[in-house]
C-alpha cells in the first residue's frame, strides 16, 4: 500500500470543492464577519493613528491583511474540525474503512480546505479594493497568496488535531470562543502587538497567525514588525509542525 495515493487525494479535494460550491450560505457566512470588521472598523477608524502604525498608513490598509488572516484562521479551523461533522454524519467511517493511507486522507483534507480558504481570502482582498484598499501590483498579491496557503495549512492541521481529541460538535463553540478569538486578537490582525505587555507579546509570538498576518502585511502594504522572510520561515516551520501533529492525532483517533 503506497502512502501517498494521488487519486484518493484528488477525490477528497473534489468532494471539498463540490460541497463548498453547494454550501453558499456557509461561504456568505464566513465572508460577512471580516467584511463587517472591515466596513465598521476600517472606515470608522479612518485617520486614527495607533502607536506602531506608521503615520502615512491608513488604518484600512493596515486592517485588510489582518482580516484576510482572520478569514484564514476561521475557514481553516472549520475545515480541520469538519472531521467532527463527518464523524457525526457517519461519513468518517466510510472514509476510514477504505484502503487509503491515513496520510493521504489528511493531505486530501488539507489540499481541499486550503483551496477553499484561499478562495475566500482572495475574495476578501478583492472586496476590500472596493472599500478603498490599495495594492501595488500583481506580485504582492501572489506573495500574499503564499502566506494565505501556509496559514491555512497550519490551522487545518491544528483544527484536525483538536478534532481528533473531541467526540462531537458540541465543543465547537467553546473552541471558537477560547481558541480562535484569542488567537485572532493576539495575532496583530487588528492592532500592532508591539504595544502589548511583554508576557502577552510572548504568547503572540507563539501564534502562527502572527507570522501569517505580519508577512501578508509586509508583502501587501510594505509594513511589518518582522522581516518578511523570517515570517515565511517561521510560518513554514509551524505549518510542518501542525500538519505532523494533526496527522499523528488523526491517525491515532478512533473513527467510531
Amino acid at each position: 500500500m503506497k502512502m501517498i495515493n494521488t487519486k484518493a487525494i484528488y477525490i477528497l479535494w473534489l468532494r471539498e470543492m463540490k460541497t463548498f460550491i453547494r454550501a453558499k450560505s456557509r461561504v456568505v457566512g464566513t465572508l460577512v464577519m471580516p467584511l463587517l470588521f472591515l466596513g465598521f472598523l476600517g472606515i470608522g477608524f479612518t485617520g486614527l493613528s495607533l502607536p506602531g502604525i506608521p503615520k502615512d498608513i491608513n488604518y484600512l490598509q493596515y486592517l485588510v491583511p489582518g482580516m484576510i488572516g482572520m478569514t484564514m484562521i476561521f475557514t481553516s479551523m472549520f475545515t480541520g474540525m469538519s472531521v467532527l461533522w463527518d464523524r457525526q454524519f457517519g461519513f468518517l467511517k466510510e472514509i476510514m474503512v477504505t484502503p487509503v493511507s491515513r496520510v493521504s486522507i489528511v493531505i486530501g483534507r488539507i489540499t481541499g480546505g486550503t483551496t477553499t480558504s484561499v478562495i475566500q481570502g482572495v475574495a476578501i482582498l478583492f472586496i476590500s479594493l472596493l472599500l478603498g484598499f490599495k495594492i501595488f501590483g500583481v506580485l504582492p498579491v501572489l506573495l500574499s497568496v503564499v502566506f494565505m496557503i501556509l496559514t491555512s495549512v497550519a490551522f487545518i492541521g491544528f483544527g484536525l488535531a483538536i478534532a481528533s481529541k473531541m467526540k462531537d460538535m458540541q465543543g465547537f463553540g467553546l473552541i471558537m470562543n477560547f481558541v480562535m478569538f484569542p488567537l485572532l486578537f493576539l495575532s496583530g490582525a487588528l492592532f500592532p502587538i508591539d504595544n502589548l505587555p511583554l508576557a502577552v507579546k510572548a504568547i503572540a509570538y507563539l501564534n502562527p497567525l502572527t507570522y501569517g498576518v505580519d508577512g501578508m502585511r509586509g508583502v501587501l502594504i510594505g509594513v511589518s514588525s518582522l522581516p518578511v522572510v523570517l515570517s515565511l520561515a517561521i510560518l513554514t516551520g509551524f505549518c510542518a509542525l501542525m500538519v505532523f501533529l494533526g496527522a499523528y492525532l488523526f491517525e491515532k483517533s478512533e473513527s467510531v
Partner: protein
Amino acid sequence: MFAIKVEDLTKTFNGTTAVDHISFNVNNGELFGLLGPNGAGKTTTINILSTLLKPTSGYAEVAGFNVLKDRDAVRNSIGVVFQDTALDNRLTGRENLEFHSVMYGMSKEERNERIREVMELVELSDKADVLVEKYSGGMKRRLEIARGLIHKPKVLFLDEPSLGLDAQTRRAIWEYIRKLNKEEVSIILTTHYMEEADYLCERVAIVDHGKIVALDTPQNLKDSLGGDVVSLELQEQNDDGFEAELKGFEWIEGIDRHDGMLDLKVKNADKHIPEIFLTAERRGVAINSIHLRKPSLEDVFLRYTGKTIREQEAGQADRHRGRAIRGGHR
C-alpha cells in the same frame, strides 16, 4: 479457507466488556447472521472486523488477512454498510459512489460500469444524479448497499440493514440481500429482528451481553426447542382411540391434553397436518379448529437467555442510561 475467522475476540471500553471472548467462523459464500438485542456487542464486533476498532485481545481474520496486522489488505477485501447512514448528503448518489470507487483505486471505465450495474441492482438508476439529502430512508439504505458492493468485496458487512425502515422497504432490502449471493460474496449481517435473521441467514449466532450463546442454522436452532405445536379442538372430548393412534406415528413427539384441547408436539408439522386430518376422518372424529405454532427464533432467544429480546433491550437501555450518566463510553 474461511471468509471470517474469529478466535477468543474481546473488546472492553473503560472497563465495560462489549465483546466477551467470542469465537466463530463464516464460510466462503455464506450468509451469516449475528442476532441479538441492541448493545449486545454486534456492532463492536463488526467494527473490529472492519478495522475501525482494535480488539483488546483475541484474533480475527477476514478473507484470510489478520485484522490487526494486514489492515489494508482487509480493507481492500471488504464492503461495509454501517448501522447509521454514512453518506455525504451534499453529494448526489452517483458522486457518493464515485468517491467510494476512486478511494478503492478503480479505473474510470471499471468505475462507470460498476456504478451502472449496482445502481441497477438496487433500482436507483433514475435517481443517480439527485442529491442524497433528497433520498428517502429506504433509498439511502439501498445506495449504501450498492456502495458496499461496488468494489467487488469478498466479504460484505451489513450492520442492521433494515433498521428503522417500514415493512415494505424492509422486504425490498431483503430481496436485494438475497440477490447479492449471486455476486459471490460472503455476507455477515447483524440484526435484532428475528424474522430477518430467520429469513436471510444460513447460520445464526445468537449474541447476548457480548457472548455467543448459540450458533446454528435457524432451522436447527428452532428444532432444538423440540418441534412445532399443533393444537386441536375436538368436538368429542374423549376419543382415546384417536389419541392412541396419533401416538403411534413416529413424527409425533408428545401429546398433551388440556382444557379440551389436544396439543401435539410435531416434527415438521406442515407436512403432517394432512395425516392428522385423515386419521381423524377415518375415526369419525370431528375437529372444530386447528392451530399450528412454530417456534420462532424469539423462542430460541428466550430459551438461551431467559428473556425475550425486547425485555433484554429495555434492560440494556437502562444500563446505557446509567453508563451515560457516569460519563462512560457510548
